[in-house]
């Protein structure tokens, strides 16, 4: 249990570092959400309850570092994690497609205001939501490939 907690804390720190870095130093029109990708991977790896708790924590933290209204990202992360619990997939294409779809939902939900509709116009919203989803899907792909390679190496080593 302690080991798992330490591993999760390490992962949280790495994701926070990457998120702060891209928010402040990467000068692109949209930046990927490392937290969202991490939460999706945690859910699909079977840590559903932990991912639900972390969705609130990382959402609040994300709003603080991106100067948003605290709680808004938490709600969307929570909905995404809860919905992703029902997507049971182990294949890389399935997970990449899932990450793409959930990222698209996150972006559109984030840009929506109850009384005022979407904050950007439709063409900009369409372009940047796709770009955001693509970035996240690529990050998830890289992490999945890395994780599977590591697991394969570990198995081979143990079999010897």
């Amino acid at each position, binding site marked *: 249990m302690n080991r798992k907690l330490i591993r999760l804390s390490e992962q949280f720190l790495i994701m926070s570092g990457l998120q702060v870095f891209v928010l402040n130093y990467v000068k692109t029109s949209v930046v990927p959400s490392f937290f969202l990708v991490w939460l999706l991977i945690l859910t699909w790896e079977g840590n559903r309850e932990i991912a639900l*708790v972390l969705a609130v924590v990382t959402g609040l933290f994300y709003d603080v570092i991106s100067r948003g209204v605290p*709680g808004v990202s938490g709600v969307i992360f929570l909905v995404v994690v809860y919905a992703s619990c029902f997507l049971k997939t182990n294949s890389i294409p399935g997970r990449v497609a899932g990450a793409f779809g959930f990222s698209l939902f996150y972006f559109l939900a984030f840009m929506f205001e109850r009384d005022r509709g979407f*904050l950007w116009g439709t063409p900009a919203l369409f372009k940047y939501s796709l770009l955001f989803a693509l970035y996240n899907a690529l990050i998830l792909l890289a992490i999945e490939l890395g994780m599977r390679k590591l697991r394969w190496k570990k198995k081979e080593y143990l079999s010897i």
Partner: protein
Amino acid sequence: MLWRFRREILFVFGLYLCFLAINRGRVRERGFRQDEGYSEEQKINYEDLIAENKRLREILDIKADRNYLKRFAVAEVISIKPFVFPAELIIDKGDRDGLKENMAVLSKDLFLIGRISLTRETSSTVVTVFNSKSRVSVVVENTREIGVLVGGGVPYVSLKYIPADSAVQKGDKVLTSGYSDFYPRGIEIGEVVKVEKDPDSLFLNVAVKPYGCFTGIYEVLAGE
């Protein structure tokens, strides 16, 4: 029984916590700031204070130079949405400080950011030129042609109703025209970055890069 619905319980509890955080944020916007529980070291971040002091001094110098700015209040930006090409800001001044809906909001470099769309007791919501609901009556400095700057596009906003035979070109400055009820005349917004002719239209497609709406907004000037 409860264990079976653990995920749903966590989901509902999480939502409750997030809404609590959102409400707390709104309470902060209304001015009831709670800073108990922090040590003095945590309260004072000297580097931030020095940077803030420098920015405020710059604003004061600018205000002293220009008479019309004396009516403007200096406000701090509490939140930005979204982080890039912000469409909405929340500032820490409201009704109590004399701010009213539709007042103009400028950056510390005196570029137009947008206008106040909603005021509360001690905070206000600002709609920036990137917002899909934003419309600003503008004039191109070189040609003196009047158009409407329409929000919703990023990273550039579009300038509508510039005639197809116009001499407008890349690099031309775009200023507020003063014909709308919201913005004083002559406030710089940005520059023309793209001019395209549309054979099916009587008007040009003009893209404008606004200078005032970027993530480094910490203090703004609001007034009329």
